[in-house]
């Protein structure tokens, strides 16, 4: 029977429906101040895509920021464990994961079963998250999906003081005022995100097979910088934003299985 994983993040909610070992459907929706109902909304969308009803699901696992308010699901699991689990499903050899999310950046270690063994998160003040990119993309009037491409055309190294999104914004404005090309500013920004990520990773031991997840993993500029800083090629899942929901769905499968055998 199918199961669902829902990752209700602070900015977006994602739902994945799985059956056996396959993803049947998925959906991503905006969350901002929409409240707890957003989880059920994205779930319904993905059910529709799969041609299923809520009652067809054997188990629903919520994770993410909004997991506490989600009713009608399993006892929730943190998105950090879900990330480890989701990545493991795609890449069983991966032991180190770097997740750059909207509000947090995390470095995660897992074992050969995809179980969480250690993790580090950025301090609240450190920036280096997806939000960082959004704010700057906005100032530069560059669509966020174009950032990576632009950054790769940069010719000079610009250093950002990465402490804070707000300060970085002021810095970016000043750079614009001094006539620094947008591509260089974006490249500098990517560099600083990669630096924060690298400083998280050094707190754990990085193993060769490592994966990059979160919306930022779609950004070729950041990926290139991370490769440069870590010296390893990250493995990236087809839709890195969905990893948490996939992990949650896998936990849902476990729970369902456990109930069946019990």
């Amino acid at each position, binding site marked *: 029977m199918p199961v669902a994983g829902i990752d209700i993040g*602070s900015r977006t909610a994602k739902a994945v429906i799985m059956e056996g070992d396959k993803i049947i459907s998925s959906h991503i929706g905006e969350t901002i101040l929409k409240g707890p109902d957003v989880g059920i909304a994205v779930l319904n969308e993905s059910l529709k895509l799969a041609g299923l009803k809520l009652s067809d699901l054997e188990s629903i696992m919520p994770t993410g*920021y909004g997991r*506490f308010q989600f009713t009608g699901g399993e006892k*929730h*699991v*943190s*998105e*950090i*464990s879900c990330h480890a689990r989701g990545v493991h499903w795609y890449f069983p050899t991966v032991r180190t994961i770097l997740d750059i999310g909207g*509000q*947090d950046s995390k470095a995660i270690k897992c*074992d050969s079963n995809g*179980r*969480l*063994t*250690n*993790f580090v*998160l950025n*301090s*609240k*003040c450190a920036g280096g998250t997806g939000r960082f990119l959004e704010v700057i993309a906005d100032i530069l009037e560059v669509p966020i999906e174009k950032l990576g491409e632009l950054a790769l055309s940069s010719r000079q190294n610009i250093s950002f003081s990465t402490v804070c999104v707000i300060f970085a914004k002021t810095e970016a404005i000043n750079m614009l005022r001094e006539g620094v090309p947008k591509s260089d500013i974006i490249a500098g920004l990517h560099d600083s995100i990669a630096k924060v990520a690298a400083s998280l990773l050094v707190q754990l031991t990085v193993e060769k097979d490592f994966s990059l997840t979160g919306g930022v993993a779609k950004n070729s500029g950041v990926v290139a910088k991370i490769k440069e800083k870590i010296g390893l090629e990250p493995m990236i899942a087809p839709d890195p934003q969905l990893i948490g929901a996939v992990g949650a769905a896998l936990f849902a499968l476990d729970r369902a299985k456990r109930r069946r055998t019990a």
Partner: protein
Amino acid sequence: MSQILKTLTPFMEINKEFPFASPIKEWKQSGGKVIGFFGGDIPEEILSAAGALPVWLRGHCSEIPLDDANSYLHIYTCSHMRSILEIALKGDYNYLDGVMSTPYCDGSRRMFDVWDRYIPIPALFFLHTPHKNTPEAEAYYYENMKEFVTSLESTFQKKVTKEALWDAIKTYNQTRKLFIQLYDLRKKDNPPISGAEVMEIYDASAMMPRKDFNILLEKVIDEAKTADRKLDSGHRLMINGTALHNPEYVKGIEDLGSIVVADSLLNGAMGFSDLISEDENTDPLLAITRHYLNKFPAPRMVPSEIRFDKILQMAEDFRIDGMITGVVRYCAPHIYDEIRLSKRFEARGIPSLRLDLEYGMAATGQIKTRVQAFIEMIEERKRKG
């Protein structure tokens, strides 16, 4: 979780009345003096022997805007101190007859200056404390204690007698003994009391006469012993870090499948783990001096190994699965302490987690995610053995 302990109700009632709780009001109405203090390691026994009610100042158990405080203490001062100052600037600490501090940390020292200059207060007391427990430090500290007693006596026109000091020592030791009993109950597999509930007790203890408090605490212990209350322990955690007072913060941690069974907080185990000598043939002031010099040390005291060993010993005694350190931003003593302590925990195979906090915070979304993942990690480690 099972029904809350009935005997906790009086404490929770008092906490609701913060900052001017009824025991303080009653004390004032009967003509008693009230001395507020901040910083740490304050010899409350002396204040009490001088006939005053010592009140440990703190901020609200919620994160409040600190805009007034920010204009007096720059934002690089921790929000713990600024939260206290905000209340004082709003006039809600106007009931105090005096304020006392020590050179505890950068924040408390500068806060004392601001208090001195800007907050109308009848009396200010400052006790100089050393950072070591050498014989020279003891002599220096003892002389400072004497000086402090003299300033108290002259301000309140009241002699601090040996008898009063011994009486206060016994009363405060009684509290310590009771807390030791209470913590012994927390060593059990299924402790009868949660960490959040213990925090309620601590919070109330700061706002009432010690003798009254002891009576109430004794009742809690009796109930905890007899009520056959077994909290589902989940994973056993210890909390550490900057002085924190919000039971909701602890509850947030416990709601995620853990129970807080021990702490190394200034407003917790650091205060009661050691007793003052009650040998009446000695000088009570010297007994107090020695106690404060040698007790469970705060991060300001050196060598840090004494503190680390004590915490590690607690971790063993309370069979800790993990340690969570809450560090209020800009709290330098705990920032550096945590770096060293977590490495020592790691060496013993006990995982630790640092949470960056603002004072007053409950467990917010981000904190919950970190804590839950931490607990899931502990679970995995346990599963593997």
